[in-house]
């Protein structure tokens, strides 16, 4: 049998434990919610059982796998027994997230150690779909002299084109925007040089469709040549211009150095390396008649000897 004295001591101990336990959990976090996207987050934390006039600190932490982490703290003085504290829109410390991530977070009231998981966008963890936004990149290929020694007369149609393909079939889908030109330097009899610049736009359209850029929808894993690597296809030509009647003061000039392909490209998102080729053609300089290789209504353009032009070497762009 347990004596009354022992029972009293047990009762006192139990009471003390209960009292201390109540003290330890006097300040509680009842919840935390965040709105987060690839650029940053906002956070709201609720606390109860606070002592008015007392200063508190809430620390919080976000984890997005190995790609990114963020942490911070909220310092506040309680004005009542409850508080709702917020962190205004805050960017991720390493800049916008560029990869998909499973975002989790927790908040802790330091005075009591009360900790809650942060509900992010209504769930925890929250999946953020983030990819790198495409940044334009410029490069130039050449001079490449696939066409040899050209005698370019005023009024000649000169066509230009390109093809590209992604090197690796493991890439994600992307929008690939290409803004490009082919420049053909013409040496004039008087010793000067005049550039014939061919803006490149839509593939297979007359004079590039009158546009100076084109966006290709590239499917995930696509390693095909765009628009085509068939050097005679009309799709292999993205633009054409007619040399000015005043080229070289109306005289025939010469191109022996080849042409230069200039491009500004944007992958959105950036997904991989790309192999590039370009070509150009002045059928008249080849004795094939003055043919615009982007003109589908001119049957001469279908002749491989007229509008078929060798590609430059393949050049890889990162």
């Amino acid at each position, binding site marked *: 049998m347990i004596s009354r004295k022992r029972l009293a001591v047990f009762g006192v101990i139990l009471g003390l434990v209960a009292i201390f336990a109540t003290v330890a959990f006097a300040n509680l976090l009842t919840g935390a919610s965040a709105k987060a996207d690839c650029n940053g987050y906002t956070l709201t934390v609720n606390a109860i059982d606070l002592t008015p006039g007392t200063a508190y600190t809430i620390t919080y932490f976000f984890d997005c796998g190995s790609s990114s982490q963020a942490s911070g703290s909220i310092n506040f003085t309680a004005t009542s027994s409850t508080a709702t504290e917020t962190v205004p829109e805050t960017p991720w410390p390493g800049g916008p997230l560029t990869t998909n991530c499973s975002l989790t977070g927790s908040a802790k009231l330091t005075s009591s150690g009360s900790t809650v998981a942060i509900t992010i966008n209504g769930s925890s963890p929250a999946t953020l779909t983030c990819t790198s936004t495409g940044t334009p*990149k410029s490069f*130039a290929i050449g001079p490449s002299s696939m066409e040899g020694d050209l005698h370019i007369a005023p009024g000649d149609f000169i066509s230009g084109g390109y093809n590209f393909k992604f090197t690796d079939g493991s890439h994600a889908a992307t929008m690939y925007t290409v803004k490009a030109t082919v420049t053909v330097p013409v040496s004039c009899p008087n010793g000067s040089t005049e550039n014939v610049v061919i803006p490149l736009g839509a593939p297979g359209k007359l004079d590039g469709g009158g546009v100076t850029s084109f966006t290709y929808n590239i499917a995930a894993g696509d390693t095909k040549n765009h628009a085509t690597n068939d050097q005679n296809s009309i799709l292999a030509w993205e633009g054409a211009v007619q040399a000015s009647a005043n080229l070289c003061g109306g005289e025939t000039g010469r191109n022996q150095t080849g042409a230069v392909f200039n491009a500004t490209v944007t992958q959105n998102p950036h997904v991989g390396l790309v192999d590039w080729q370009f070509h150009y053609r002045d059928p008249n300089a080849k004795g094939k008649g003055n043919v615009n290789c982007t003109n589908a209504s001119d049957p001469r353009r279908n002749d491989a000897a007229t509008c078929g032009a060798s590609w430059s070497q393949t050049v890889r762009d990162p």
Partner: protein
Amino acid sequence: MRPRQPWSSSKPKWIGRISRGAPRTLPSLLIVLALLVFLMRTDAFAASPRLLTARFTGGCIGYTIAVTGEGLRESNSIVSYNITLTPPTGEPIAIVDSFPVTPEKDGRFHGTIQGTWKNFEFTLAGKYTLSGSAILASNLTLLHTLPVTFSRKNMNCRPARSS
């Protein structure tokens, strides 16, 4: 008749003409001089944008391209470089990349970029002959091209060890 000595102290006739016309000629000369100075300050005689040097150093792992140039006034200018590695047999490897260049006040510019072949997913193995060109461009406008000079034109790269 005594021949005239080149070191004779007598003034040539043209000096006499300038001296006599000085009151009228001097303002004209000053105007021409001021015009010249003005034109020089307004870059009328500025060099056209061009690359002066484009130098490749590197090896089987990576490389450095260093360029210098002058006469650059255009904004958003880049130097694009094409490097081709040609093996004794088989397909050449060619890469292209670029970096922005910003001119100083006098139009001179310089830039350096480092890269690795791995960036282009190439692993070099065997012998290669190098060639290439550097291109100065601005907003898709070709400004100048220059062949790249190489610290060595040939490379011999060992095959990668299999682990």
